[in-house]
Structure formats: C-alpha cells, structure tokens
C-alpha cells in the first residue's frame, strides 16, 4: 500500500519559475508522511496538507498509511530510513508502541515531526504538534451541556484506547459534564473511532436505553455512526456532539442532524510540521519547544457553513 509520488518533473517546472534551473538537476530531498488510514477524512486532510506543503517547499514525498498497526508503522519507518528520508511527518500508531520506532529514526539521523497524537516520551521526536484536545473537549462539553439544558441522560462513545486522544477527550468531557448532577451517563463504550462500530454499538445501547437525550462522541466518524443509528430508530431529537470538524459533520449540522463538533486544525498542523521539518533540514533549526498545542474551535449551526476540509474559511 505504499504510494511513492515522484514529483521531480513538477519540481523542475516550479524550479524554473522560482529559482534557477540548476535546482532541478538534483534529485529533491525526501520527506516521509505516515498517517492512519485516509478512509477517515481527518487523516486524509493531514496527509494532503503535509504533501502539499512539502511539494511547495520542493521536496519529494513518500506518503503511506500504517492503518493503526504498530508493526506496519515500524516497517514504514524502516523504509523511510532505507530511502534516505530527511524527515518523517508522523501521525502515530500508539503512544507507547511508537517510541521505539521514532527512536530508530532518530538514531539514523532522521528527525520525526509528530502530528495529532502524542507519544509517551519526550526528547525522541523533534516535535509533537497536537490539538489541545482538553481545551477542545471542554468547548464541546460546554455546548453539549447547554443544548441538554444542564440535565438528562446521555451516552458517551469513546475512541481507541491506545490513543491518548481518546482518554484526554473523555476527560475533558467529564471534567465539564460531571459538574452537573442532573446529567446522567447511562452508557460509555468504545467504538474505536469507527463509524460502523459506533452504528452497531448505538443500536445495542438504544435497546437498553430507548429514552436517552444526548450522545457525546470522541470523534466525528463515531458521531456519524451514532446519528445514523438514531435516525434509523426514528429518534430525531437526540442531541449529538462530535469532535474533529469533518465536512460530513458540517453537512449534518447544516441539515439539522448533529448539533455541534470541535474543529481540530488538521490541515494546518500538518503544514506546520512540514515547515518545522524544512527549518530543521535547510537551516538546522529545531522547534523552540517539542510539545506544541494547537487550540480547537467550536463548530455549531452559527459557523458550520465556513468549515471546509478541517479549516475555517
């Protein structure tokens, strides 16, 4: 499943415009871009954002998905090392499992710029650029509490356990929601970030709890699964809040389905990672701080129309 994009011809064209033609005589430096499966539009936006910025800066790119398999991720990093990549942009396959793989790249002299997900170590990656999931989850939870009128029964769909983001969003939700004694959680289940799994879990939960008033979800794909199950069961008034800011959820909000989500600047974070990688390669300049938080923005009916591919227009 490895897609190698050779953009030398394109680089030569740009080179002719921007610089002298001699630049194109040399093979461009390689940046490896490794993310979870682009089936989730969030990860596709990351890969696209990183690749576009890398190309713009004159790099060749190697784009691949580890499909949330730590072994596959390790093999992909081996490939990046073998191909002489100058930097790796990585949305990783596990906070603990990834540390060794990133260390291996570091030992080979290749800096890794992590996006979206953290690893449980510092000093191994050159950068860890992550959304401020706690701040974002609090925004989502505050909106959820408001929509619920500070009371009622609800369900929480949690993400994949190996991903710190699942835990931090759940914590952000509960740090707000649990302060309201009249809001009662009747079920909390992991649907592993998956739309299909969320649909199935929601159907089962509804059998035991037909009268729930709200669903708060750790990401947008699970929120899409939940709203589909709710609509199939004829429950149009259940309040659903997601997290990510995908175009699918934007469309659902505009159609009166899902009520709110939280935008993570996925496209921007991927581009920022490539800019920092470029600074490291070209200027030997590392980021001032390894761990970097990017603030999230609440999306609801007021601003959903301005949302496009994980960025506000």
């Amino acid at each position: 499943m490895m897609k190698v994009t050779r953009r030398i011809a394109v680089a030569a064209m740009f080179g002719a415009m921007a610089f002298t033609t001699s630049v194109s005589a040399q093979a461009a430096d390689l940046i490896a871009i490794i993310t979870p499966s682009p089936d989730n539009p969030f990860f596709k936006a990351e890969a696209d954002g990183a690749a576009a910025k890398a190309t713009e800066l004159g790099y060749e790119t190697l784009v691949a998905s580890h499909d949330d398999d730590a072994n596959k991720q390790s093999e992909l990093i081996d490939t990046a090392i073998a191909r002489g990549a100058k930097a790796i942009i990585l949305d990783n396959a596990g906070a603990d499992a990834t540390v060794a793989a990133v260390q291996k790249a570091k030992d080979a002299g290749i800096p890794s710029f992590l996006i979206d997900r953290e690893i449980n170590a510092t000093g191994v990656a050159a950068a860890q650029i992550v959304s401020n999931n706690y701040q974002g989850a609090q925004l989502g939870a505050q909106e959820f509490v408001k929509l619920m009128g500070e009371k009622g029964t609800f369900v929480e769909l949690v993400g994949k356990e190996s991903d710190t983001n699942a835990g931090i969003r759940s914590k952000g939700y509960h740090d707000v929601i649990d302060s309201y004694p009249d809001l009662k959680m009747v079920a909390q289940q992991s649907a592993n970030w998956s739309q299909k799994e969320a649909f199935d879990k929601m159907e089962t939960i509804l059998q035991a709890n037909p009268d729930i008033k709200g669903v708060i979800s750790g990401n947008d794909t699970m929120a899409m699964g939940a709203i589909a199950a709710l609509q199939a069961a004829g429950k149009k008034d259940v309040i659903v809040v997601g997290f990510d800011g995908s175009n699918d959820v934007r469309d659902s909000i505009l159609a009166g389905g899902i009520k709110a989500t939280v935008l993570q600047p996925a496209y921007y974070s991927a581009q920022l990672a490539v800019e920092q990688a470029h600074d490291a390669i070209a200027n030997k300049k590392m980021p001032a701080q390894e761990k970097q938080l990017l603030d999230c923005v609440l999306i609801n009916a007021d601003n959903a129309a301005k949302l496009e591919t994980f960025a506000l227009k």
Partner: protein
Amino acid sequence: MNRIRKLAIVALACLALAGCKFVPTAEKQKQASANSAQASDKGFDAKVAELWDAKVMPYAQARAGLFMEVQTAIKADANAAGAKYGYKEKEGSAPWTLLARIEGKIVAANTQSRAATIDVDADGDGRADAHIQIGPVIRGTAIRDSLDFVNFNDFTNQIDFAQFGKAFNTHLNGKILGKLPRDGLPDKSAAVLGAFPLPPAGELPLVTPLAIEIKP
C-alpha cells in the same frame, strides 16, 4: 524492620494527605477523583496546594497590571501586552493568558448556571468590562496557562497536563470561591486578582480569579 518501614510510609502518607486536605466538601472531592483515575496517582492536587502560596501568588502579584492599563496595552500591541502581563508557550497556537487586578461594581450576576459569573464594571461607565468566574464550574485552564514556570513539555502527555490545570481550578473552588456569597451580588463591588486568555475581538475577557473579595 519491614513493619517499621510500613509505618513510616503510612505516617508520610498521612502527612501528605494532611497537606492537601483543603477541599471543603468531601463530596466534591470524591466526585473529582472518581471521574479521573489518574488524578490521585500523580498528586497534582497536592502539588498545586504546595505551589499556590509559595510560587503562584507571588508570581501573579508581581506580573499583574491594573485591568484598564492591561486593556489599553492589549489594544496598542497584544503581543507586547502578553509578554509584559502574561505568558504563553513558545510554540503552538494558544493565546496569551494575562494577569490583572480588577476593581469595580458588580453590574450583573449569572448564578443560575453552575458555571456562574459576575460582570464587573472596571472603568465606572456602568457597563461590564469583564466576566469573572465564581464557580463551581470553572471554564478553561487560565491559572495554569498564565504561569511561566509551567510548561507542557514537562508533562508525560496531555492528560497529565490537563489534570494539573484542573487541579488549580479545584484549589480555587475549595480555598476561595466556596466562601463567596451567591445572593445579592449586583451593586456590591468586587476586587479581583485574575487570569484571562486574550479574548476574541469584540468579546469581554473571561477572568478566572486567583483572589477575590466582595465588598458592600
């Protein structure tokens, strides 16, 4: 031998617990620790209790400016104002979090919501200049974010960093806000030392107090 060691550990643990037993309602504390399994392990609540008087308050008192002066400085140059009166991390996109002293009449109180606030008129024109959070629900992590000696890089992950931020709010609720009157607030006056993230254009600052006094 083993027994003596155990006793010593128990004694130490008691001391540590005594040091952090500041939350007035045991119920609230129980709820907080039930929600976050990580909380008790890391001892962040105790850490914050230890830092509060020793580092947090002296830092805030030294850094804070008079609210209207801080507002004027923000209008002139937000980055310069942030660097002078506040802090933000070197990378990332968090806004500046600034520290200020606000005094003035309470022109409105929203105590219906559990995220209660009072509106304070700092310049005497009869209109609100800032929303002050009075709990029990505290939005955001402004106290943590205003401190130049607390850095995300020093934490294992976002969960720990968040827990540490929450510990400041818990401390604030227990030590300071729990004692505030809730009724008849409008027309009284408030004196606040507080932290606020740089608000979006056109919005009033949402201030998290570090110290607050309500006067008749």
